[in-house]
């Protein structure tokens, strides 16, 4: 396990320095929740707030989600784990935030746990990465020598399924959806206003949680996140009825990576794959 206490100390130290020096107006990190297992995303705005900052193995939330909530130009320091840093890169690519307004407090970490189930989530999400892809200050020693799980390994079981069985699987899963929209709200890449599903003209789907509407909402959302999903897994953890949305997003990410040779949020200079093209893209991808 990573040294969470050490990271927490460093986080507080850096937050204090940045706020005192006036380099940033807000530090996005974590604070204590109603119990140990439930830390909360936290916005520290003054030195007095810093004592509330915590970091432990349940701090899964992707703090990049909150970046777009602040007006453009706000100087923000944000605590980023591996997947979160990819989200930041992706947001920079999409010109939602500017690199110069951000101070990235990188957190190299492994052994994070899901607070609902207690299971270690490394293998399921976070793309097998432990170290942030982009950071200004690293809050702990880089992780090396961890057993790297291929990010797409969990997919094998589902890819091997017969298509009818897979249809049954997804239909059953998506039928559970209660349309609380926690998935899109927890997602750092879902920032459309209004979301296509809330539009009344055209109305893409029923408002009631029924099979066709749920299917429309989720399939389209998978599509909208194609080449943008950075595999943090927040959508699945946010879901009150535990729909494994991350699986579908992973599959789409995998296909995009194979077809377009680029994973989401890895390089600042990349363009999101679906707002980009190569003349030499092969027609094979359509087969």
């Amino acid at each position, binding site marked *: 396990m990573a040294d969470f206490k050490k990271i927490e100390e460093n986080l507080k130290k850096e937050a204090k320095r940045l706020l005192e020096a006036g380099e940033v107006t807000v530090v996005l990190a974590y604070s204590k929740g*109603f*119990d140990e297992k439930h830390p909360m*995303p*936290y916005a520290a705005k003054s030195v007095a707030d810093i004592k509330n900052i915590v970091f432990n193995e349940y701090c899964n939330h992707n703090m990049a989600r909150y970046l777009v909530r602040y007006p453009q130009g706000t100087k923000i320091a944000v605590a980023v784990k591996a997947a979160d840093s990819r989200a930041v890169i992706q947001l920079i690519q999409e010109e939602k935030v500017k690199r110069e307004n951000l101070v990235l407090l990188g957190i190299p970490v492994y052994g994070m746990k899901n607070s609902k189930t207690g299971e270690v989530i490394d293998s399921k999400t976070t793309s097998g990465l432990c170290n942030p892809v982009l950071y200004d200050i690293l809050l702990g020693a880089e992780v090396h020598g961890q057993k790297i799980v291929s990010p797409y390994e969990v997919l094998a079981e589902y890819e091997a399924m017969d298509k009818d069985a897979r249809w049954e699987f997804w239909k059953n899963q998506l039928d559970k959806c209660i349309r*609380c929209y926690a998935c899109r709200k*927890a997602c750092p890449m879902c920032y459309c206003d209004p979301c296509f599903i809330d539009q009344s003209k055209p109305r893409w789907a*029923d*408002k009631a949680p029924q099979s066709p509407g749920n299917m429309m909402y989720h399939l389209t959302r998978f599509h909208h996140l194609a080449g943008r999903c950075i595999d943090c897994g927040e959508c699945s953890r*946010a879901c009150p009825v535990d729909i494994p949305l991350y699986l579908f997003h992973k599959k789409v990410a995998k296909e995009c990576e194979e077809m377009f040779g680029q994973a989401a949020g890895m390089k600042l200079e990349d363009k999101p794959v679906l707002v980009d093209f190569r003349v030499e893209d092969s027609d094979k991808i359509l087969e």
Partner: protein
Amino acid sequence: MLKKTAINKISELAAVLMEKGTLIAPVKEVSGHNFAQILDPQKVDLDFYNTIMSPKSAFFPHKEDFINYKVGKPISEAEPVVLNLKPMFLFGVRPCDVKSFQIMDIHFNAAGIIDPYWRQRREATTIFGYAFDLSKSVDSADFYNTLGIYAADPDGSDIFMVKKDNELLLKGITLQGKKLLSELTTIENGKAADKKYFEEYIKKGRDYKTRFMCLDQETITKKLEDIFHNTDFWTRVSSACLSCGVCTFVCPTCYCFDICDDTQFGRGTRRRVWDACMFTDFTLEASGHNPRTQVYQRLRQKINHKYSYHVRKYGVISCVGCGRCTRYCPVSIDIYSIIEEAIKT
């Protein structure tokens, strides 16, 4: 009257109830337990702490059809949906959730215009309350004690159930419950020892402690009115809020809904669907004006509605402390902590 049945024979009781009408009881799903209409008596599962979704959907379903219509046809051809309810049995409801029905009753069944759907469903239903298992530890999110509810309160149930080792004790509380219980001839009568156990269990329920703070209805109402314009406070407590609808959908006392028309292939249904005050478009007017555009305004609305407006309007806090909103919040926002903090502010 007190009766009892072995827990592993619960399916037999379920089968009897299914013959009499519609049975709604907890079933185990992949992610946890939920109330569902029982089609197979074996599926009833009482081995749960509390359900993910609250049992409000028994009376206030996620979607309720009003009218079926055809597009382009005269309006007189539209057909109102008639409920045609069989007797309903709502089985295994925790005391805090039972209390929620009384709070919702004021809104739908007593004040102003009566909601015909809620009333019909409510009148057709017998509620089987079910005490929390006192031998198991309490979930850290729960705080029903704060709202004056205890783990084994039979108040509001028609029949109240208590677990005794491998048996389930059932006691008729209301006239309706007693009558139904007397009709359940397949289960045996309780003995004197069972009666004693039952009474003691209810007393012991008072010592089963959830989170607790001293909450005076008038004080909190006034306090929330006073700090309504304290934007700093509301911004701070809502800084993590994602503005999703989980808390309102799992809540047993949230009743906001939307009315929408769903048309498909020329036929359609006007229905009401749960809505959430946390959604951006909840108060968006056709003119484009939206009085609550910010996350903090929406969270403020939610908390004020439960702890202030509802008291002013109906004289009771619209929260039972079941802890669901806290438990299922993706970012662990805790309404209890917010109220606690509000009092101190």
